[in-house]
Each structure stands twice: as C-alpha cells, then as structure tokens.
C-alpha cells in the first residue's frame, strides 16, 4: 500500500522569511454548516446585546407611565397606568404669545431688526449672480438655515413658561442649543478653513498652542469663568446667555475634524477659482462651503446636542436660580435631592420628553455623524 502523502500547501511568508505549512480548504459542504453555526452564534450575541442596550430605555418609558408610586419599585410594568407624570411637567405652563422683551422699545427694536433681517435675506435670495462662481445652491441653503434658526429663536419665548419649571428648562436648553449650533459652527469653520487652506506665519504655532491648551482639564477654569461672567452680569438670572458665551467663545479649538475634511478637498479647485479672479472669501463660501456640507451638518449636530447634556458648568453658573436651569441641571436635581422618591417617575417622564426629539434628530442625521467620527478617528 502506497504511503499516503498528507495534503499540504506550502506557502512562503515573505515578511517573516519563513516557509509555513497551511492546511488546504475543507470540503464545501462542511464549510456551509460551519458558516451557519457561526451566523447563529452571532445572531444570538446580537440579540442579547440588543436586549441589554434597549432594556434601560424601555424601563425608562414604562416607569414614566407609572401611577402608583413616585419612587423606585421592584417591578417594571406599572400596575396603574397614568399620564400624571407628564401632566406634572406641563402644570402651569400657559401657551400664550409673548415676545422676548416686554417693554415697548424692545418690542419695536425686535420687530424692526427682524424686518431688516428678512428684507436682507429676500434681497440676497433674489439677486442675480454675476458670474458662475457665485451661482451656488449650497450657500443659499446655509443662509436659509441660519435665517430659520434666528426666526425660531426670536419667537421661542412665545411659550410663557414662567410658572412651569420643566417647560422653562426645556426652552432654556433649546435656546442654548440653537445658538451654540449656529455660532460654534461659524467659529469652527473659520478656524479650520484658515488653518487648512491658507499658509501664514504662526500657523504651526497656533496649532501647537491649541494642542497644549486642550490638555488642561476643562473644569480647572470654572471659577474664573464664573467671575468673568459675573462681571458681565451673566450668572444666575443671566445664565442662559452666559452659557452660550462660554461654550461658543472657545469652540474654535475643536477644529480638528473639519480641518481634516477640508484637507481632503483638492487645492487645485481654489487655485483655478483664484485665477478666475475670485477672492479668498468668495472661494470660501461659494466653492468650499457647498462641498463641505457633510462636515457642516456634523458640526451643527454636535453643537446642538452638546448643551442637552451639559450639567457641570450649567449648574455652577445658574446656582440657586431655578428659572435659568437647563434640563440636565433641573432633572439631576429632581432625581438627586432628598425627596427623589416622589420625583423618580417625573424624572423618567422628563427624560423621555428630552430624549425623543434628540434621538429622532440624531437618527435622521446619523449618516453625517458617522462621516464625522470616522474621519476624526482616522486623522486623530
């Protein structure tokens, strides 16, 4: 009987400089069975994970409808279903139309400035582009977005929420988030465009300084910022504009991701436009901006979502002044004060109301978020 020669492929692994023996492929049929087993395991793991990931949120929603006790209980499904927790959140909120400022002059100024804003916007939209460079859909859309945000902010205080903490906190946070989204995006785009497209003396220095500053813990400077805001009268009652100021002032330091994006846009585009006689400003808003749409949306999304979770500085600045809390501070206090037993289900209800719009927004713009974080991780 002939000696059986083992079926072995010989492969040269060049990198290691070794010759390895590798088993040949197994028969196709057993491979399919193997594949099926692997897939089954993966499905099991994924389903288990999904349960773990969703459970807390399902519990949160279920407990927000519980009627029998305001504290924590040992079961998930409420024995008594109720909307009382939600009703509590809106107690005393009167929905009446009211402008941001109360005295006549302020109202007149608000109306006039809005009219000028609208007129300017209309003129901008109707204008006939002189050359092809200006003909750009992207910046019109961006301008419209800013305009819509401004309008919204102007009329946001339509809901008179003086009697209801939760509605007021929600509105405070919404205002902060809208302003942050617009201003932070503006700052970040300015810095990242300048650092990415232009070469000037001190460019490297700026980048290094920002890198070093970023390594200091953020809360270190809390008391100084508090005093700076206090000098400007932007603490306690003025905490909302104060928070906007602080979170926008230094936002230019977060330029990394969008600079990375700008770096990938070929420079030849700029150069050809410059040869055609466009200024840097024109290149910026009519060539780069439309191409940078994903990163603009990412920056807006991040700017908008940030303030919803901002607890530390918000609680420090608004200390003791209930009317200028944001949702994080308000709800944190509900659940961590002495009588949180009574407020636990209310916290759940508030949490649900905050989470729903944010989650929907995030899911809708998820594509851009993924683009941003992936780009950011690759470039560091």
């Amino acid at each position: 009987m002939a000696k059986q020669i083992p079926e072995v492929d010989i492969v040269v692994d060049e990198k290691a400089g070794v010759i390895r023996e590798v088993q040949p492929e197994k028969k196709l049929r057993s491979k399919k069975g193997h594949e099926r087993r692997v897939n089954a395991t993966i499905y099991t793991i994924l389903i288990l994970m999904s349960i773990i990931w969703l459970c807390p949120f399902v519990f949160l929603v279920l407990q927000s409808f519980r009627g029998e006790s305001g504290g924590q209980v040992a079961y998930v499904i409420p024995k008594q279903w109720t909307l009382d927790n939600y009703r509590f959140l809106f107690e005393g909120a009167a929905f009446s139309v009211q402008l941001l400022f109360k005295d006549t002059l302020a109202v007149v100024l608000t109306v006039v400035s809005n009219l000028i804003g609208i007129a300017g916007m209309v003129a901008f939209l109707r204008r006939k582009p002189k050359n092809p460079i200006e003909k750009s859909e992207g910046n019109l859309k961006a301008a419209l977005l800013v305009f819509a945000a401004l309008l919204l902010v102007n009329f946001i205080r339509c809901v008179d929420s003086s009697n209801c903490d939760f509605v007021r906190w929600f509105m405070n946070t919404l205002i902060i988030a809208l302003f942050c989204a617009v201003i932070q995006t503006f700052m970040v785009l300015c810095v990242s465009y300048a650092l990415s497209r232009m070469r000037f003396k001190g460019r490297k220095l700026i980048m290094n300084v920002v890198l070093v500053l970023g390594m200091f813990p953020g809360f270190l400077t809390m008391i100084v910022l508090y005093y700076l805001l206090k000098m400007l009268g932007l603490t306690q009652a003025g905490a909302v504009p104060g928070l906007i100021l602080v979170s926008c002032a230094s936002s230019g330091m977060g330029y990394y991701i969008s600079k990375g994006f700008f770096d990938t846009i070929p420079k030849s585009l700029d150069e050809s436009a410059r040869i055609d006689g466009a200024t840097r400003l024109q290149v910026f808003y009519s060539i780069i901006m439309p191409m940078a749409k994903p990163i603009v949306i990412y920056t807006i999304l991040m700017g908008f979502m940030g303030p919803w979770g901002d607890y530390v500085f918000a609680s420090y600045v608004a200390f003791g002044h209930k009317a200028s809390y944001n949702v994080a501070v308000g709800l944190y206090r509900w659940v961590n004060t002495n009588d949180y037993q009574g407020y636990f289900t209310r916290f759940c209800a508030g949490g649900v109301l905050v989470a729903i719009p944010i989650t929907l927004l995030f899911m809708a713009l998820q594509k851009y978020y993924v683009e941003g974080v992936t780009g950011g991780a690759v470039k560091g």
Partner: protein
Amino acid sequence: MNDLDFLKLSKPQKFLHNLKKFIVSIPGRLMAAIAGLVMWVVNLFKGIGKGIADLVMTYVRGDWKTKVSYTVMGFGSMARGQWLRGILFFVFQTVFNLYLAFFGINYLSKLSTLGTVETAKKGRVTVYGDNSFLILLYGVLTIFFVAAFLYTWYVNVKQNKISEQILKSGRKLKTAKDDLASMVDTQFHKTLLALPTLGVTLFTILPIIFMILVAFTNYDNQHQPPQKLFTWVGTANFETLLASDSNDLGIDLQDKGNGVTTMTITAKNGDIITVDTTDAEAAAAADALAVDSSANFASEVIGQDENGKDLYRFTFMGDAGEDVVLEASNWIYVATPSFSHTFKQVLLWTLIWAFFATFLNYFLGMLVAIMINKKGIKFKKLWRTILVMTIAIPQFISLLYVSKMFAADGLINGMLMSWGWITEPLPFWTNTTWARVLIIAINVWIGIPYLMLIATGILMNIPADLYESARIDGANAFQTYMKITLPYMLFITGPYLLTSFTGNINNFNVIFLLSGGKPLAMDLAGNAGSTDLLITWLYKMTVTDSNYKLAAVMGILVFVVCAVINLVVYNFIPSVKNEEDFQ
C-alpha cells in the same frame, strides 16, 4: 543588532527590544528637547535683540514722521495718507493709555503682594479692602494688554520703515480701500481667526494662566475674597500633594443604613492609628470595645470642636493585623488622611480606569463591528440603530437612570430580592470593587457603539484583495483578524486611541453621573471617593470644598500626566513610526 537579527526575534522579544531601545533613547531625547528649548530661547532673545537694534536704526535713519510715530502711534501712517491704519493705531494707543492709567496700573502694582489692606468692620459698616482675586485676574489681564500693546507698537514702527522704503523706490502705498479688500483676500486668515482668537484668549488662555498662578497661592475657603486676602506661598501646594510620606491608614468605613456606620480598622503590627470623633455615642462604643479587645487602645478627650462638643481621640496600636470593628451611629471622622496619599490612590485608579475604558471598548467595539459587517448577517441597519441609541440619548438621562437602577433600592436589587435570589441589596455603589467593575461595564454600554461606528467605516476601507489572498493561502478567520484586520485598525486608529485614552482620563460624565465618586473612603482626603478620577476630585475640590489652590495644582498635574502619556505613546504609534506601511 542588525535588521536580520531583529526579524528573527519572536513578537514579545521584538516588543522588549523596542522598549529597551526606547528607554535607552530617553536621555538622548530629553537632551534634544532641552537643547531645542534652549535654542528656542536663544533665538527668541536674538530676535528681540535684532528687533531693538532695528527700532534704533529706524529711529536714527527715519524722517520726522517716523520719529513722531515712536510716541504718537499711527502718526506716520496718517501723515502718509494711510488714514485707516493710522486711526486704528492711534485709537488703540489711546484706549490702552486710558486703561492703564485709570484701571490697570492699580492692579499691576499690587500683583506682587496680592493686596495688603484687609477687609475690616467699622461699627456696622464693612469697609472692603483689597480683593486678591480681582488683583490677580486684572493683573494678568493687564499683562496681556501690555504685551499686545508692545507688539502693536513694534508693528506701528515697522510700518513706517516699510512705508519709507516703498515711497523711496517710487511705488504707491496701499490705500484704505486696498487694506479693506485684502481683509477678504490675501489677509483673509486674519479676518477668519480674529474672533476665535479673541474668544480663546479671554475664555481659555487667561483663565488657565490665572489658575496656574493660583496653584502658587493659598487661595482656599480660609482665604476667600473679598472678606479675606490670599497671597503667594511658592511651591507649598505642590509639596502637599506630592509629598512622599503617605500614611496608609487601614481604615474602612461602610454605611450600613439606618444611621449605623461600621468602621473596620486593620492595624498592622506596630502601626499607630489615631481617629478623632466628636460623637459621644461613638466614643462610648469605642470605650466598650477597648475592654474586650486585645488591641492596644487608648482614648482621651483632646478638646472641643466649634460647636462645643467634646472631641475624642482614639489611638490604636496595631497587634499583628487584628481587625478592630467599631459600630456606631453618626460616626464622625475628624482626623484627615494626607493629600499626597489620596493623590496617589486617585491617580492609580484614574489610569486603571482609562486603560480599561479605552482598550475594552476598543476591542469589544471592533468585535461587534466585525460581527455586524460579516457577510450573511441580515438587518445590519437595525443592529446598528439599536446600539447607537446610547449615543443619541443624552448621557445625563441614560447614565442617571442606570445609576438609579443599580441603587440599593433600585430596580435590579428590587427584582432580585422579590425573586428571592438575594436577601439583602447587592452593594453596587457601596463596595469599592463592585462600583469600579460596574462603572467599567456601564462604560462599555456607552462606549461600544461609538467604536462600532468608527470600526465599521475603517473595516470597509480595508482592501478586499488582502482578504482574498489570505483566503487563498488558507488562513482562518482568527488568522486573518490577527494578521490583517487588527494591524490595519491599529495603524489607522493609533492617534485616535491616544486621544481616547487622554479623553478617558478626563471623562467626567460617566463617573459623576453614575457614582459621583462614591463610595467614600476613610483613607482618602478631601472628600475623595474610591471611584473618583482626578477630574471629579478636582470638581469636588472646586465646588464642594472651595479648595482652589489644590484644585489648581491638580489641574496642572492632570495636564502633566496627559502630556507625558502623549509624548511617550506617540513614539510607539505605528502610523508615526512607519508611515508607509499601508499606503
């Protein structure tokens, strides 16, 4: 060792070899860094010297317009028809002079002492003296302003020199219109960076410099302006936090509920532990214990506290590792453990936490991404959407809820008890180890989706032919992972891992919202708990204790830790070491 020798080594040997090479290179690198710094300083001074020489020469050679510009900024520009530049220079000079004369000089002169006039009460009226805080803040601000002025003044003089040269060569100077036009064109970067730079200077650089200076003062709750002054103390605060003698107290405090606190003291042979308390009941319990305990034990009344209560001091002299258990209500622990010991403990936990939070999330997230992206797995989008929920929902909702879920009276304990699996609540947040493990686990819940998204994007970019050739060579799934996927991922995400590690050192939200740093530990000073990170401890120091001087030192130390890690790890990142590998 030549390249061929190196290739023959096994993986761990290669790593050791690299490590050795790195450690050996540290002195050289340090020297290079110091030399670089020295060169930088030398160049700086050279530059300043050159600048001054230039200023003198410009004055000597310049015409009368230039000479006037030395005292009246912008005069030369205006006289030569560049009125926009001239006016701006002049306005800046006027504003600066007024600021310095009526405001800045007052604070600048007191900066060396931080104020000497104490706030006093004359009858019923409080007469406010110096405010050290404002002196320091405005002093730094004034120094900023002076620096900006000197620079502007230099630019103003240089402008004159350039203008003279241009006029001599017969060309025309730029008009105001040209200047404005250049703002959106050749000088566009200045327009773009003006506002962000102003914001960062006022709201980041100024506060950071202020806090760095606070680290060298005695600013705390005993020295709080405007009632009290604070002053410079040199490096005393750094010594408090970094002193080498640590008193490792073998004391463990556990809250049993119902106002009963158990204190376990493990006194090793020869150790002397002193505990002070103001609580008479606790004192009685301790006295009773002394009778039937073999521990060497002494108690005495050492005085009275602010409320006039007797202050007892117990001294335990350790007897071969015997545990002494004291059980009392309202146990008040007065003796303070040292800050340096606490700092080491907290730093250690911070590093452990950052390690697990980074690498556990990284590998698990990658694993999940690979599973979801595997060929033949359906509903990819559904799985992703479910996982991404934890990113979408604000952390203060999800983390606060989960934290309450694991509380002693929370859902998990409640359910387990109602099912009869346990009789008393599991100590999720009261036992150090439980709390630490739970925090890391919950962080996985929060962190995996993020890594999954990143990994998904990168996995799709791995060239398919790499896998194809691996398959033809007969590599199994594990081998392809180890030889292709992992190296590629590490190569691409190296810098991300680094930022994520330092990000986790400063990960405030997870710790603060989950445990708030609890459980409190007896052997930690300054209200620190066993799960406190440096950053949450810093927060407690600032907000709860008003111990600003130590908070400032902590902030500087966190910076040093982050900077050192960045520098060291940067040398090990493959994408920096061999840039060409995957290109």
